[in-house]
């Protein structure tokens, strides 16, 4: 943590969309609010409020135990009743919110101690003091490769240690699973979140680089710069279906869409356990198991600490310490175990569901990896940008008459933000549509075509009808006729209304995009404003295992930014 500039850089990139399960479910944009604890019924004068932003991986557990705590009307020494306002959001977002004083938090619990280091380093730079002092771990969960059990068994799971090198072998085979005698499973399809935005994505990269070097600690810049390290990373990354900002989203997609969509994804151990919850996941085709990479892994340790800022009074500290102590008591820790976390209270023996019947091995992991220094982290991110799976995007924008005014202006702004966030080697095609679709750009690499793309988006105006299905079909045809299997192929569609002018029917369109599923073209849809047919757009996104977003003139920029995290 020597380089302030690097700390700031990393903190910034980690903060954009938050880390971990930062998404607010499968629809909508990332952000806080979902799963926040209920308001207090105690008059303000009689209570002391604690604002508690935390990494949302532990949302279900913290919501349950915090509401019970609030209901107990526990008091501090001056007789005031403690009320904890627990707010789940991405870990990076929690850090940014507190550092920027947008959230006047009294205590904080990101998913990993790495954020405490980053937050404290930036706070020291800004104010000469840390963001939090002493911290305690609330719960733990190792980072694992979650895989469908038959696939894991084909890879040797259960009979020998399996790791990144085995994943690499599989990605090297053009025939995918056929190389292991399982042609019916098609290509090896892999997922991890975007390392710029998500803890588990960043950790995946560290693990891949460690595996490439054969080290488990003391990773150096020289290690990262070796050509074979980049090659290893590139080969694994090419099996990636797409990236994303939220580990939770990947988990839900893996469990919800089955092995046709993803063979494996980097998740937290507690999410593998969660997949065995038949109420949430009644129709899994196979069980999911946790692979603890033989090369080593990292722990998500959920530290909690009292924030060191002027608005945190002695009374807040007293209340916070009582609440933390409560969270670490046996009863609450046992509740955490029910949600698949390993309790930080060492008095508790590990028991179900932390067992092999829930796809995990409580005796794993066998070895862990050392958190690299900030300069090495930065070098790894740069290496990834070079060797990541690049994207081939078709942007399909509605320019019908109903978009006139602010909607069009904001949509242009959002689309330009997306273009800004694409990498230099990513390709963009641009297909605006109203009563008919007209190609403006085709396959422009951003290294040379970014300005042209920005200009094209900036020159749009609203007029005419809505031939939505024809436009999506045209985009689909373009990608089908110009396949780029070494890239993430996706269509990003924004519309504010229902289709009125297409010759293509919805059924025809859905059949078409479903038929091309193995080609891996994802269709991300944005229902912009109240006139959009959400059900239709959701259906189109679901048909390609992509994601539907609700957009407004207020949030459209953020929606486009979040979509960029998939690439």
């Amino acid at each position: 943590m020597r380089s302030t500039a690097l700390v700031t850089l990393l903190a910034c990139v980690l903060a954009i969309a938050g880390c971990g399960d930062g998404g607010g479910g499968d629809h909508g944009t990332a952000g806080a609010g979902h799963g926040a604890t209920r308001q207090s019924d105690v008059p303000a004068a009689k209570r002391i409020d604690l604002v508690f932003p935390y990494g949302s991986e532990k949302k279900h557990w913290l919501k349950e135990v915090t509401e019970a705590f609030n209901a107990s009307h526990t008091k501090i020494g001056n007789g005031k009743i403690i009320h904890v306002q627990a707010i789940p959001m991405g870990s990076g977002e929690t850090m940014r919110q507190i550092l920027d004083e947008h959230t006047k938090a009294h205590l904080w619990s990101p998913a990993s101690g790495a954020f405490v280091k980053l937050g404290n380093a930036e706070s020291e730079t800004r104010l000469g003091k840390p963001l939090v002092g002493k911290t305690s771990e609330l719960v733990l969960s190792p980072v694992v490769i979650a895989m469908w059990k038959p696939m894991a068994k084909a890879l040797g799971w259960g009979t020998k240690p399996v790791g990144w090198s085995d994943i690499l072998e599989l990605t090297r085979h053009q025939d995918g699973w056929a190389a292991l005698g399982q042609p019916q499973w098609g290509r090896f399809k892999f997922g991890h979140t975007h390392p710029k935005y998500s803890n588990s994505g960043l950790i995946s990269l560290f693990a891949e680089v460690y595996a490439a070097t054969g080290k488990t600690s003391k990773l150096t810049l020289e290690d990262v710069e070796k050509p074979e390290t980049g090659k290893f990373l590139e080969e694994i990354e090419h099996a990636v279906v797409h990236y994303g900002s939220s580990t939770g989203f990947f988990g839900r997609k893996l469990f919800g869409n089955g092995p046709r969509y993803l063979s494996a994804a980097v998740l937290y151990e507690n999410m593998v356990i969660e997949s065995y919850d038949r109420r949430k996941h009644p129709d899994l085709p196979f069980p999911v198991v946790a692979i603890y990479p033989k090369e080593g892994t990292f722990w998500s340790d959920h530290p909690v600490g009292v924030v060191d800022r002027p608005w945190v009074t002695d009374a807040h500290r007293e209340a916070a310490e009582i609440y933390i102590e409560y969270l670490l008591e046996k009863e609450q820790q046992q509740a955490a175990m029910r949600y698949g976390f390993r309790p930080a209270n060492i008095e508790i023996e590990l028991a179900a569901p932390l067992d092999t019947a829930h796809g995990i091995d409580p005796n794993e992991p066998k070895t862990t990896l050392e958190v690299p220094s900030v300069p090495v982290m930065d070098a790894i991110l740069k290496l990834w940008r070079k060797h990541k799976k690049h994207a081939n995007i078709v942007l399909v924008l509605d320019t019908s008459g109903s978009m006139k005014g602010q909607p069009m202006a904001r949509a242009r702004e959002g689309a330009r933000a997306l273009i800004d966030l694409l990498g230099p080697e990513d390709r963009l095609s641009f297909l605006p549509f109203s009563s008919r679709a007209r190609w403006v750009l085709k396959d422009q690499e951003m290294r040379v075509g970014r300005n042209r793309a920005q200009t094209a988006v900036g020159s749009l105006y609203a007029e005419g009808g809505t031939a939505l299905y024809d436009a999506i079909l045209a985009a689909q045809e373009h990608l089908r006729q110009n396949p780029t299997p070494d890239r993430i192929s996706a269509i990003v569609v924004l519309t504010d209304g229902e289709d009125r002018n297409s010759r293509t029917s919805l059924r025809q369109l859905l059949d078409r995009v479903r038929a091309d599923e193995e080609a891996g073209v994802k269709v991300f849809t944005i229902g912009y404003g109240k006139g959009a047919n959400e059900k239709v757009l959701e259906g189109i996104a679901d048909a390609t295992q992509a994601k539907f977003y609700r957009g407004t003139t207020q949030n459209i920029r953020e929606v486009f930014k979040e979509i960029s995290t998939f690439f």
Partner: protein
Amino acid sequence: MAIPERKGGGAGKLVFFTLLVLVVGIGYLVYSQFGPDGGGDGNGNGGNGSGPQATGPGTAGSGGPAGHSTGSPPPAGERVEFRIAYGTEKRLWLEWAAREFEKTAAGRRIRPILYGRGSVEGAQDVVNGPGDKPIHVWSPASSAYRDVFETEWKIRHGAGSPILRSDNLALTPMVFVGWKQRLDAYRAKYPQVDFRSVAEAMHAESGWDTIAGKPEWGHFKFGHTDPSKSNSGLLALVLMAYDYAGKERGLEVRDIMTAEFQQWLARFERGVARPGGSLTHSTGTLMKEMILRGPSQYDVLMVYENLAIDYLKAARTRWDELVVVYPERNMWNEHPFYILDVPWSSEKQRAAAGEFLDFLMSEPIQRQALQHGFRPGNPMVPVKFDESPFVRYAKHGLKIDLPRVCEAPKAEVLQNLLASFQRLGR
């Protein structure tokens, strides 16, 4: 009601270490330890975790009567309260003792407030006192800092020693602690668990694959705390130096400033595991990290004997048995309890602290110290009996007698050792 207090604070400053090294002397047994971790074991600043979790009742307020409950608080003003700044290696035992004290007749009149602080921090708080958390009793891990504290007090306040009464609560030496399965494999390769073999194991080219044909165990991972922040880390350096010099007494600056030792130390420290990217500040945190993350995080640590004993059960239920190995040369902590005669301490508070000290030194409470892995400060409490952890856990490698206890090194030796470590940029 006894109350565990927590407060973040600055890590022990180098100037205090420098002062501290001037007064390291010989105590009840030969020892040379500073107070507990400067960064604060568990409760001090800088740790990224805590020691064993407190289950103590009450709030963390500086006198507020309410508890961590919805029940009625005990009436304020009717009980004599006093604050104990203590080295948190003994946190579990002290919190238990305080809860037991609360059940006694004296406990209904007297309320000790437990305040986890590093030795140097605790002394600073008293010298600079009273502050917002006035300290009435100071109980560091070691008495080594007593002379510096008294000198500082005299300089600042122009008065004699503020220590009215003292006693040694408990003793504990340093140990290597590791996972049985891994230490068994280690011993098949290296007959002796000592700093030299640990150095070899840390640098084994293919880690556990080379040591025991177990590639899945990764590299051999040895840990100690940050010697700049933590007493146990500094002691690890001292024991390394004694071991390298092959003596127990008369360690000189020239012994540690040889190119050979400096190179050996640099190589050793390059191999020490830093899973979070830096050395841990607190011994309690380090031990808890090992238990929570199992052999994936550390194979072997150097920690206080009492911590290893205290975590035996948790280790077994989560991962594997722990095994303790005593370094061939060792040192002691003796956990003094100093009742202070300071301007903010009333006669009632001093008397109350005395009653609590008598309670702590009583046989039942001392026997419980034994259960927490301490060797009792009350010589009337036996260590060798069937239920003693030292007998019961003998199969874990626990021993009552230490082979060789080292003399406290001179101040300049400690100073140079610490400087040598700091030059390594760890």
